[in-house]
């Protein structure tokens, strides 16, 4: 603890090495947040760098009222919100349409990209990709509320600080986001509801496989 405090003091005084040592352990978690906010690993890397730069420059102002982790996540959330503000959310319909318009390509793509014998993918990992990319279709504030509260496990109060918003507004955005995700998953996802036939989604193969497995038992 004494070491951490000493590091912090040095970082606040502008010592780059001390700063680097302090923030490094948060890199993965920040990268995950930025990735879920942007849908791009490349953008996420850049945004984590921006976060560190902003944090370094503001380090003198960092008071230990919040933990370093909370403070960094707050900066990263702001950086991500700014980055996404001018961009349109992804288009969910395009995904369903494309698979419908290209039925001959769908099995090939699933086979090659997701379910090839060389690349056996866990349903959990594929489903995580699916959740991430559908979250990208939400307006950015809803996405931030969903990512922070439901994916990273922030309390609503922590999320409100990270988003510079009131708790009431976080609640509203979170509920809207969840409602939209529910509409999509209840109607489409074979993992959420085994009655669904996911005709436009990478988990289609997995959903069918699980069903067959259940039937065989």
């Amino acid at each position, binding site marked *: 603890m004494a070491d951490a405090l000493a590091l912090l003091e040095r970082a606040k005084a502008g010592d780059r090495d001390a700063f680097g040592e302090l923030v490094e352990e948060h890199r993965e978690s920040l990268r995950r947040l930025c990735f879920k906010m942007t849908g791009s690993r490349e953008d996420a890397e850049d945004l984590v760098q921006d976060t560190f730069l902003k944090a370094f420059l503001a380090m003198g102002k960092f008071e230990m009222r919040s933990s370093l982790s909370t403070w960094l996540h707050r900066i990263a959330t702001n950086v991500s919100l700014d980055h996404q503000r001018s961009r349109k959310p992804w288009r969910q319909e395009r995904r369903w349409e494309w698979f419908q318009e290209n039925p001959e390509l769908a099995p090939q793509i699933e086979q*090659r*990209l997701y379910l090839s014998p060389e690349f056996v993918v866990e349903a959990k990992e594929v489903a995580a990709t699916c959740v991430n990319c559908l979250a990208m279709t939400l307006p950015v504030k809803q996405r931030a509320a969903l990512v922070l509260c439901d994916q990273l496990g922030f309390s609503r109060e922590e999320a409100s600080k990270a988003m510079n918003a009131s708790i009431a507004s976080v609640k509203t955005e979170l509920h809207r986001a969840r409602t939209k995700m529910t509409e999509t998953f209840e109607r489409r996802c074979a993992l959420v509801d085994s009655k669904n036939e996911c005709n436009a989604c990478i988990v289609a193969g997995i959903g069918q496989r699980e069903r067959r497995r259940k039937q065989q038992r």
Partner: protein
Amino acid sequence: MICRHVRSLLSDELDGELNEDASEQLRKHLGACEPCADAFRALRRTVRFIQAKGPVDVPADSAERSAERFLAALMSADTDEAELGRVIAEEAQRLTLKGG
């Protein structure tokens, strides 16, 4: 409680954010109103699904990464058809080569 009001509180109920009184009223409504009860169960299923899919990370070159790139190209507002075709071809070839 009317249905519209109940629907707006389902997330709070799910997270245990309602006070005892409000929660009891809501539960009473759910016990009597099948559509609202259905909506609550659906929300709960999806939220649990999303929460369980949180911090999954896989190595950078995995199949999931291809799925990401493909979906990003497909759904992103600024991809045109040509760009999409290129990504699909590239990813398919990459995996074929890799698989031998």
